């Protein structure tokens, strides 16, 4: 990279990004742990019982942040995939690869906690409602992207194929988000439980937002840790040329 004389793109090389990511992980991990602890404290000990849903509403503190992360992470994964396709940039594909499992995990959590919330409030674990169905499809999309990647041995082809699949599937994200407006769904709108008890809104919203930021930090930390694994694993691939990569690291530092 230094041969080009453009230092701005130094960290776009995986060899240089690997140590940078390593330095960033502890900060994001600490922020995640602190925010989640504060969020749980506010959610369980400061926020009062909801007037209409009782204490079952407290599931919101994990359900909504998980659901948001499932959509956010998909969009970010698709953006990395798009950059990868557009610029033929290997690190972008690695980022997309590193995000997918975390996104799938949060999608599963959104569905599971939603089911836990649906049973006491709707009387059903699951309904084929637009919001729930589109979120389930998102889980299948994540799984499909991960399986497609793992089913192709050639890394370049795996990168491009999974990136195309990720980009095409991004259409589902606005469908999930607007599903409660576009269709007559059983799933409540964005802020029903909050506006139902206006005097309680403050601490409930605070707990939810703190948890959401905490989940963001968690996602960044885990994704950076995973992309470091991906960098090393790919380095072991014969096509990479292991001997050539080590001097690059020394140079980048």
């Amino acid at each position, binding site marked *: 990279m230094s041969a080009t004389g453009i230092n701005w793109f130094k960290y776009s090389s995986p060899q240089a990004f690997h140590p940078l990511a390593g330095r960033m992980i502890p900060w994001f991990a600490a922020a995640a742990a602190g925010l989640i602890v504060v969020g749980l404290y506010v959610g369980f000990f400061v926020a009062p019982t909801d007037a209409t849903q009782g204490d079952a509403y407290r599931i919101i503190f994990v359900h909504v942040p998980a659901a948001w992360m499932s959509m956010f992470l998909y969009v970010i994964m698709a953006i990395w995939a798009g950059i990868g396709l557009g610029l033929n940039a290997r690190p972008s594909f690695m980022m997309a690869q590193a995000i997918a499992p975390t996104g799938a995990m949060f999608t599963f959590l959104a569905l599971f906690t939603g089911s836990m919330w649906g049973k006491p409030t709707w009387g059903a674990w699951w309904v084929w409602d637009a919001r729930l169905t589109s979120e389930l499809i998102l889980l299948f999309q994540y799984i499909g992207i991960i399986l497609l990647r793992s089913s192709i041995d050639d890394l370049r082809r795996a990168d491009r194929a999974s990136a195309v699949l990720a980009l095409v599937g991004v259409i589902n994200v606005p469908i999930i988000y607007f599903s409660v407006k576009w269709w007559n769904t059983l799933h409540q709108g964005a802020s029903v439980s909050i506006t139902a008890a206006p005097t309680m809104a403050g601490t409930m919203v605070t707990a939810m937002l703190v948890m959401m930021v905490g989940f963001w930090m968690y996602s960044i930390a885990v994704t950076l*840790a995973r992309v470091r694994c991906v960098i090393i694993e790919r380095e072991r691939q014969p096509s990479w040329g292991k001997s050539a990569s080590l001097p690059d690291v020394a140079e980048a530092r």
Partner: protein
Amino acid sequence: MQWGSVEEFFAMGGYGLYVWASFGIAALCMGGEVLAVWRRSAAAGSRDES
């Protein structure tokens, strides 16, 4: 704080099963993911980190 006792807190107004299952599975998934990445990282080996 609105909880009179520890039992009351864990009962969650009768919704304890749903609330704790949600948070328990969330903790398991996130903790499990961290563990999985940790082990993957150990298996990959440190590059030349010192």
